[in-house]
């Protein structure tokens, strides 16, 4: 068994090496007719870009993706700079008519996205042509190796029960060197995904056949991300099933997040696209789904007939009615650790890192300030978006709606939720985004704290203050601080993962939905001590 596990690790690392190596392989060039077709599809009005791109990438040998990308970006820049210069010149000459005409020649889009689109057409080599083989060497070996590493734990972990031996003695899970490497890998991955999609175009080739079979379209970097997300969650869910095989709550919860990720976040949206409907994740509630009320989305939905209208109504009802009602009955856990995709990744890939979240009072203070600031940000931005949509004005009190949307998308949507939210798993624990950033979590938190039946009940006087609950709380809640006082835990940030209850050696904690009355129970003297003393204290 140990041999299988070790072999699995080696196989996984080989797969990972191939995966990283894949970025650097292949060559990129276009034939004249391919470029012509591409330009026709794009309908650029600029004539300069045709020449520039021809010079840069047609019939050129042996360009790797980085050289290709830099040539393509330079070509677009040449064209855009030319028209920028003309605009500036006409502006100086106060030739407004000519100036206005120039804008149609400018090509919009982020340089690396433009380069990505062209690279998808230009790719040659193993990833683009020998996709099945390369898929096996990367995804295949990765999955196989990971499973070989994980599955022997059924035997190696011994009898079912809490198996946290050595977590703080292991460089992968105690912020040791393996943790820092994982951190660098994850952060780099997100930076590439969000800001340099063309550099990872070879990875996208690997999932193109899968994308074609589901949505009928070739894949984008977002399809790659969705597929990778589902794959990682599935493999790490196997780990959860084994680690918590004695705990039915964990097994059901893991199955639930996996189901919602694969079916709702991945398959249904792609299938919708196949039927020429808007891509939509039915479980992704505003304000986590922050661009739901953006002009482009509203316009797309409104132009998609009855179905688009249905999505619009569903999305609104989800946030305004379903989410709060469910939180009232079950706590925010029904969303955050049973349904949500971010939560799903945190509870599978992130589970080995849950003990790294900070439990200090200081981080709680930061948490409250930051998460509520993000909520305010998203609400103000949505107010701007709706005002703009209905009034037609492009700015409110002198601030451009587009600008505020871009800032949010960059700072919160990409950097916070992706790069920091997931990239920092191995350093700050697995719920960085959910705890400090997610505006939906903040909204659910208010309801959970003030109007809900959910609580973690503390079992009388059984707590021995050992600290396992606090240590393994991914949300950084100092669970023990309540348990050792005999108080129930009613905290807005609790996502109800149930691990505090699982790791408690004395059976002190239970997640439950009970009557609101007595849910919050401050006690000074714990159960078990002199009855008169308790009465005395409660009378005070």
């Amino acid at each position: 068994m140990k041999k299988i596990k070790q072999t699995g690790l080696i196989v996984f690392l080989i797969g990972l090496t191939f995966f990283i190596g894949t970025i650097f392989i292949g060559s990129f060039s276009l034939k004249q007719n391919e470029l012509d077709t591409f330009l026709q599809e794009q309908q650029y009005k600029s004539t300069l870009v045709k020449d520039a791109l021809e010079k840069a990438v047609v019939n050129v040998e042996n360009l790797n993706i980085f050289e290709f990308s830099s040539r393509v970006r330079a070509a677009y820049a040449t064209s855009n700079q030319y028209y920028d210069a003309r605009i500036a010149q006409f502006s100086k000459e106060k030739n407004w008519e000519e100036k206005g005409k120039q804008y149609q020649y400018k090509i919009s889009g982020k340089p690396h996205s433009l380069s990505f689109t062209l690279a998808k057409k230009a790719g040659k080599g193993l990833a683009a042509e020998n996709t099945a083989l390369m898929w096996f060497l990367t995804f295949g070996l990765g999955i196989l190796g990971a499973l070989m590493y994980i599955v022997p734990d059924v035997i190696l972990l011994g009898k079912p029960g809490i198996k946290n031996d050595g977590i703080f003695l292991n460089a992968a899970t105690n912020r040791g060197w393996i943790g820092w490497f994982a951190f660098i890998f994850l952060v780099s991955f997100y930076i590439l995904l969000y800001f340099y999609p063309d550099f990872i175009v070879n990875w996208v080739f690997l999932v193109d056949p899968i994308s074609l079979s589901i949505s009928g379209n070739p894949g984008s970097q977002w399809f790659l991300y969705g597929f990778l997300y589902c794959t990682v969650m599935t493999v790490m869910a196997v780990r959860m099933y084994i680690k918590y095989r004695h705990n039915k709550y964990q097994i059901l919860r893991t199955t639930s997040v996996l189901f919602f990720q694969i079916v709702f976040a991945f398959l249904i949206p792609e299938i919708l696209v196949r039927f020429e409907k808007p891509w939509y994740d039915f479980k992704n509630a505003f304000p986590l789904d922050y661009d739901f009320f953006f002009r482009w989305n509203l316009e797309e939905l409104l132009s998609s007939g009855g179905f688009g209208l249905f999505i619009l109504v569903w999305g609104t009802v989800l946030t305004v009615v379903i989410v709060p009602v469910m939180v009232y009955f079950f706590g925010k856990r029904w969303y955050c650790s049973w349904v949500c995709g971010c939560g799903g990744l945190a509870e599978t890939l992130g589970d080995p890192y849950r003990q790294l979240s900070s439990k200090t009072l200081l981080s709680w203070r930061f948490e409250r300030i930051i998460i509520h600031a993000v909520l305010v940000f998203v609400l103000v931005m949505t107010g701007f978006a709706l005002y703009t949509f209905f009034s037609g004005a492009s700015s409110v009190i002198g601030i451009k709606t587009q600008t505020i949307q871009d800032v949010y998308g960059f700072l919160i949507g990409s950097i916070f939720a992706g790069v920091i939210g997931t990239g920092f798993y191995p350093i700050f624990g697995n719920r960085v985004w959910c705890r400090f950033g997610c505006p939906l979590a903040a909204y659910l938190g208010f309801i959970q704290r003030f109007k809900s039946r959910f609580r973690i009940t503390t079992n009388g006087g059984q707590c021995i203050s050992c600290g396992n609950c606090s240590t393994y709380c991914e949300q950084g809640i100092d669970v023990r601080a309540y348990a050792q006082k005999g108080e129930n835990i009613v905290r807005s940030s609790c996502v109800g993962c149930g691990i505090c209850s699982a790791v408690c050696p004395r059976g002190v904690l239970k997640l439950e939905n009970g009557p609101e009355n007595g849910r919050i129970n401050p006690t000074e003297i714990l159960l078990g001590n002199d009855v008169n003393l308790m009465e005395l204290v409660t009378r005070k």
Partner: protein
Amino acid sequence: MEHIVIIGNGISGVTAARHIRKNSNKEITIVSVESTYFFSRTALMYVYMGHLKFEHTQPYENWFWEKNDIQLKQGFVEAIHPDTKEISFTNGPRMSYDKLIIATGSKPNKFGWPGQDLNGVLGMYHKQDLEKLEVLAPNNKVCKRAVIVGGGLIGIELAEMLRSRKIPVTFLVREASFWDGVLPAQESEMLNKHIREHHIDLRLNTNLKEIIADENGRVSSVVLAETGEEIECNVVGLTAGVTPNIDFVKTAGIALGRGVKVNRFFETNVANIYAIGDCAEQEKAIGQRRNIEAVWYTGRMMGETIAQIICGNKTAYTPGHWFNSAKFLDIEYQTYGWVFSEKNKKENEAYFQWKHPKEQTCITISFDKNTQQFLGINTFGIRMRHEIFDTWLTESKTIAHVLEYLADANFDPEFYKMHEPEIIAKFNRENNTNIKPKKKSWKRIFSKS
């Protein structure tokens, strides 16, 4: 302002300090030699096992003490001087007090075994024991085998700790079955089996004769009393119970038994000196409790009570119904009320027992065979609600009532399989009764009677 000096920063002393602070602005000093900041002794095992870091065992952040104006003094108390109301340290000046609370806890028992003070022999009680173990048994290369002497709760914890680093363990237990002075045979035997499943070499009916040293004065083997067998080992853990840690009190004229003798108000025979926690010995036992209770929560309750006494609300210590819990490797154990082992139970006490056919889950309910009154319950692998059992014990419910409403008391995580129907069916079969299990009711659970 009155100066309250507390010797010992375990759960008793710290609880006393916190509650005195809540109720007064007296000057408070906690004296300790073991560690500057309070930590949970019961969690030390998890540090060695890598579940926690030492800082995780500290329930309060370091700024807590200054913020709450509780002074922490590091020092080893050498003697108490009641005549001048002072304590003296092994070094540094004396400290004066107005009221003194002795809360120094316990130390591991040593029964005069030859070799019991050798290098390589340790208890598992203090923070220093943990540090020592980390040096003596960092892995199974340095420590090829460890022998544990004494089959109680600390013994099995130490065995679990060592096994977490794959160190072979021989576990010497004096009794015929693990912890059978406390547990009924059904449970004790289940634990024997479970201990062996964890590859612990459990030796029942076995006593230690002596510990043998190598040429460097380090442990090299132990010899067993019954068979004379010699077992090679590098570490010996002495876990045969604990005894009050009160050597420094002996010169002060304070009445001592095994512990510091106190009345229900924790007063010793010397004015203004109190004792709480594991080191306090009740002059008269409370109910069926022992005179000295080395239990986490009794330490806490004594701290809560003495704070009231010190702050002018003179309240007798009256702990409620007995309860406790522990975890034996993978098996959780809880108890509410009194369940005595076959050895110790009285004539009127009868058991109703149920055991899962496959899993390591079982219960024993103790009841009065004449009145059918429920006396107590042991559960293994099932969590129970403290509050519900506390109420049932107070209201002297019958065993039939307890079984009928057992679902209310279940505290297992959601979606766990409930065993109540099987348990009740077995009782009905054995007693020709027709108890029907009631469905769990939130209303009953949360109604404060």
